[in-house]
């Protein structure tokens, strides 16, 4: 139930909706819970709603930390 998937926003639609791509699969979802969503953003998608934006810089930093920890 709490699982969510990163999805890329490909198109903004009226009424706080957007098209997202999940590794090639396209879905219409609600972005009403986020401010200022832009095409190209990656969002955490859960039960048809975007809950959070994925911060590309933080993701890069975490991967660097993981590589450092595992050295």
């Amino acid at each position: 139930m709490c699982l969510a998937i990163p999805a890329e926003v490909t198109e903004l639609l009226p009424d706080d909706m957007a098209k997202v791509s999940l590794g090639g699969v396209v879905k219409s979802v609600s972005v009403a819970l986020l401010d200022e969503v832009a095409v190209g953003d990656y969002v955490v998608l859960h039960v048809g709603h975007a809950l959070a934006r994925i911060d590309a810089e933080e993701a890069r930093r975490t991967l660097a930390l993981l590589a450092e920890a595992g050295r």
Partner: protein
Amino acid sequence: MKYVDEFRDGALARGIANAIRAEADPARSYRFMEFCGGHTHAIARYGLEDLLPPNVRMIHGPGCPVCVLPVSRIDAAIRLAAEPGVTLCSYGDMMRVPGSDGMSLLKAKAGGADIRMVYSTLDALRIAGEVPHREVVFFAIGFETTTPPTAVAIKMAERQRLANFSVFCNHVLTPAAMRALLTGAGGVPIEGFVGPAHVSTVIGMAPYAFCATEFAKPVVIAGFEPLDVMQAVLMLVRQVNDGRHDIENEYARAVTPAGNRKAQALVAELFEPRAAFEWRGLGSLPLSALTLRPAYARFDAEARFTVETVAAADNPACDCGAILRGLKRPPDCRLFGKVCRPEAPVGACMVSSEGACAAHWSYGRFREHAKANDNTRAETNEQVPA
């Protein structure tokens, strides 16, 4: 897939495992509870326990919303669906969870009740628009991740002036359950929590502060990919070694300290805490669930219909309660794998793929079987004279 595959790298996982082995003090034991079913699933699926040294143990917690909903609320949903003119919409995971007398939403549907499986609250809203002559009730369950989507649907129903849409609200609160585990509501002793991933995208980090300040327990919020979980365990080991108990965030790519303020404001506008709510395995917990505020009572199925919640006991042979509190492991239950299997679940932990029993059934038992075989082979070899 971007932001998924990078966090499943096996070589990196083995590297982090080496760091955990190097830093975990062999003279002490580390017991960490992963609260979320999503973590339980990742641990079982990727065999993460096999990468940990024997003195670092993962204990499965009660963070699966399907698993913690008590039988009495499932019975109430089934009764609601039987009301004349009612169409009940439910997330798929709830459909097979057994209520009293072996009944479930799926069986009620087979018996003629109008029950629809939906992926999103917006699907329930769409159905309400399509059948204006029927009362469409959304069976709302889940932690802080599913509550904002329920709130969005209610606000949309208000805007669209949908008079036939309501919500049977069973939304529950993560910090209340963590507090219950720490105050000894039958939980096992632990050294810290692997904190929820997506719940935290909504509520942020502050709601876990009591774990550190009142109970001196560290929390590391972690994503659901295997590397996230391994890194969180390493961060917890370091905190324990240093005698620290901080709230740390491994999942910074999606969780900000303040969380999603827009979602928080919407939830606060529509919902208020219930005085108490019954949890499977944890009993009645104060201020642990939400109900709609009086201003939104017209969207509250409990206010619109007579929804009686009658106390109902779990199957006495089922150990779901003890498993949800971390007191027992799935194979400790005498029903596990015998009469209780995913295709015919007796308890909720076997229904949802995030339930501890379903995760162990799908992945863990094969590893244990393989390990047992290895041990037998090793013993047999020892007995062979050189």
